[in-house]
């Protein structure tokens, strides 16, 4: 028994070391900008850089639009599949997994071919069109996470009975989705939203190939040309992602407790 515990702790310690040592090394390196002493100079440089603010702002905005698009597509779709088309679930689950197996570069080249300035749908002919295409692409990349988060949320409530209870009380579809379904899966939707945010903030391939001023290409650019700033940026990006994950945990405490009992 004791020997089992020892090995368990050893594996845990190795895993933690594998995870934390590079992180600590990166933090340590990012603080070495000033010779002979530790400082936050690299962070000051990064945060004071106009390009950081512009690209980060652009990516945040893109993330917000991606989340809105994702919610508008995924929530009604997942709800309808649970309510009326459960036989389609395996097919839809497969489709939502495709972005994990099809590289982003393939998707973006497809977009360029399909929506180039000479195509019938010339998204890429204008900046607005390209931005819209980037948001659509991001929504595709985030689909596996958003769909799974929402579907898991829907699984915790009795979708069919709650829908019928609202219907018989006179509610239409809009009221049912906004006042009954969405509030009960809100935490799941927020989980999906934060995962989407984390994906969009660090995404490089799509933004780079569509030539958009996003945070991902900026990170890559800084990484190629500077010494300490990329380490500081990596830590900042890491903190943002962890912040998102922590928010999911905090918000999940406020989830409505289901009072439904299975038949």
């Amino acid at each position, binding site marked *: 028994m004791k020997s089992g515990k020892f090995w368990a702790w050893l594996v845990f310690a190795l895993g933690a070391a594998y995870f934390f040592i590079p992180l600590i090394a990166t933090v340590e390196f990012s603080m070495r900008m000033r010779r002979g002493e530790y400082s936050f100079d690299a962070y000051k440089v990064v945060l004071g850089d106009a390009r950081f603010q512009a690209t980060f702002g652009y990516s945040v905005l893109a993330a917000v639009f991606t989340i809105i698009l994702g919610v508008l597509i995924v929530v009604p779709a997942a709800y309808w599949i649970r309510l009326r088309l459960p036989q389609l679930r395996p097919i839809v689950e497969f489709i939502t997994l495709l972005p994990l197996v099809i590289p982003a570069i393939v998707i973006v080249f497809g977009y360029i071919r399909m929506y180039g300035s000479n195509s019938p749908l010339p998204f890429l002919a204008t900046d607005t069109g390209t931005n819209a295409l980037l948001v659509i692409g991001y929504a595709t990349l985030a689909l596996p996470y958003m769909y799974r988060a929402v579907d898991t949320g829907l699984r915790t*409530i*009795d979708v069919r*009975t*709650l829908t*019928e*209870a*609202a*219907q*018989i*009380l*006179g*509610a*239409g579809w809009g*009221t049912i989705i906004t006042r*009954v379904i969405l*509030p*009960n899966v809100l935490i799941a939707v927020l989980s999906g939203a934060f995962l989407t945010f984390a994906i969009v903030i660090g995404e490089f391939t799509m933004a780079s190939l569509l030539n958009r001023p996003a945070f991902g290409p900026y990170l890559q650019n800084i990484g190629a040309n500077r010494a300490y700033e990329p380490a500081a940026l990596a830590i900042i990006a890491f903190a943002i992602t962890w912040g998102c994950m922590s928010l999911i945990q905090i918000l999940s405490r406020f989830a*409505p*407790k*289901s*009072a*439904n*009992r*299975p*038949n």
Partner: protein
Amino acid sequence: MADPFLSIQHVRKSFGATTVVEDFNLDVERGEFVSFLGPSGCGKTTVLRMVAGFEEPSAGTIVVSGKDITRLKPNQRNVGMVFQAYALFPNLTVAQNIGFGLKVAGMPRADIDARVTEMLGIIKLPQMADRYPYQLSGGQQQRIALARAIAPKPKLLLLDEPLSALDAKVRVSLREEIRSIQKKLGITTIFVTHDQEEALSISDRIAVMYGGKAEQVGTPFEIYNRPATKFVANFVGTLNVLEGTVTDAAAGTVRVNSEQVSLKGKLNGSKSGDTLSLALRPEAISLGRQPGRDSSLSGEISEVHFLGSVIRVRVGIGGNTVSLDTFNSPATPPPAVGEKAEISFSSSDMLVLH
């Protein structure tokens, strides 16, 4: 005669090749409490769901108060419904749950508050307004679901096995409460259950369903005492079934075991020599010869179960076994297994199952 309040005419429902409801007909008067009673899969919930609008009939019409609602959507029917699984909205408080239908209907806030308070008073939970469903017991949740269903003053109240998920004690008290509220408000109610005691105790009429059809519609007294079919007789209450042979069709005599029983007027169409299934309720049978009982059969006691106030006795009569209950008397010891016994009954209580 005035038109019925709810009229279900020739309703049929098929899912693909499977027909779950066949030519279902029922008229319900205003303020009546009608139960659909039947085993699982008999189509009772499907009929209820068609009345609610959740299923569309494959054929037939459903008319409420003179208006054909067969093709109307559930939210256009002004029908209230209570579900087996409560179906309270977990994100809303009790008051918000009860006021949901009123808010959807666009009622002013002050009127909603007044109606919610009134409803909480009716269901005797006035202090629960700010609680969430997860903070309530099953019985309390179902009362809130009832209040929510009747708050918008629906024309019709549908109860889909609302007591099934509750424990026995709560089930009895809540069913009495449901009936009392229903009588007080005079709301026409359809109650679906597979529990015969529930149906018998609170209904004005019962529709016993089997294989997608109404086998018999009648008052609890009629259903229990004059079952129209073998299924109804078997499904409602406990029944002792004895095999008998018609000895003289004209005189109405039947031989059970080796004894003659007179069933004059009940043999409609049977010929001498025919084998019949005869049924007796346990409460129609007495142990030993009793005054006023014109028939008797002899046998041997095979089982005795002491249940406190009642002693359940099983008597073997030829190839049949008859179950009967006698009241416990401290002065008289219960009969012993293996004793010879005579049972007596009135032939008028004997049912011929067709």
